[in-house]
């Protein structure tokens, strides 16, 4: 079995799609955050794959930064979760609709 770049792309596409789908449809705020992490992972896979094929370490450095951002994002997101929960007694994203027009 020879793995080409296409396989990586398909993997990352599907992973990203699953993550995106989760972001779009889950009601639970926590699960939404997790789905975002999935999407970030998908991006990292692409970085790594291309980094190797282009013989350029920059991709790896970038994926490290992405992981950093993911950490920050998770921290803020979870703080928001707590904030939301304390104010609304729920984790349902649908109920956080103050912006409703």
């Amino acid at each position, binding site marked *: 079995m020879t793995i080409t770049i296409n396989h990586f792309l398909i993997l990352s596409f599907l992973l990203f799609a699953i993550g995106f789908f989760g972001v779009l449809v889950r009601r639970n705020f926590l699960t939404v955050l997790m789905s975002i992490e999935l999407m970030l992972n998908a991006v990292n896979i692409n970085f790594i794959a291309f980094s190797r094929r282009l*013989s350029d370490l920059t991709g790896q450095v970038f994926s490290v930064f992405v992981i950093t951002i993911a950490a920050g994002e998770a921290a803020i997101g979870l703080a928001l979760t707590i904030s939301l929960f304390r*104010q609304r007694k729920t984790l349902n994203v649908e109920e956080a609709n103050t912006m409703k027009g």
Partner: protein
Amino acid sequence: MGAAEAAGSALLTGVAGWLFVGFALLILGTAIAVVWSKNPVHSALFLLASFLLVACVFILEEAEFVGAVQILVYAGGIMVLFLFVIMLVHQRTAAGTPAFQHQWDIALLLLPVFLIPFLYILGTEKFTDIARNPDAFRAVAGRVIGNTEAVSWLMFRDYLLPFEVASVFLLVAMIGAVVLGKRSFEKVD
């Protein structure tokens, strides 16, 4: 395979290839489970599995450092955070409430729609599958040492400023998280 591939080393062939397929399928499976399971604790555990599997793919791709970071930060840091929060809010899923939004159908529709440009790119673009310099991941100034050292050289020399910015970013995120968490206490009372 053509001559160009012969010049460099073909990547992930044989067992490594099958390993990749296996990891990939597992990744997708756990990812689906993350999105699918109703209980956030289950989701978190599947997510942990998914992270570890992605780390494996990284290592397969000879990006050992990133793989390690993935395990340390994700599996070690972020997951713990998640689990803490889950415990903190210890939300019990109401029996009647569906896990999914009303818009799940449209979202599902969006996936094949996204597939179109993706497949179009796959069909029209030709990406190389050979690493011209197989040692690029390990070499610093032509000397082969190791992946971690190579990444470090790059990060602390070429990407020093972004690195510092990232550290500031983390600091800001930390303060923000503290403030958000704290203020919500006040408001409740």
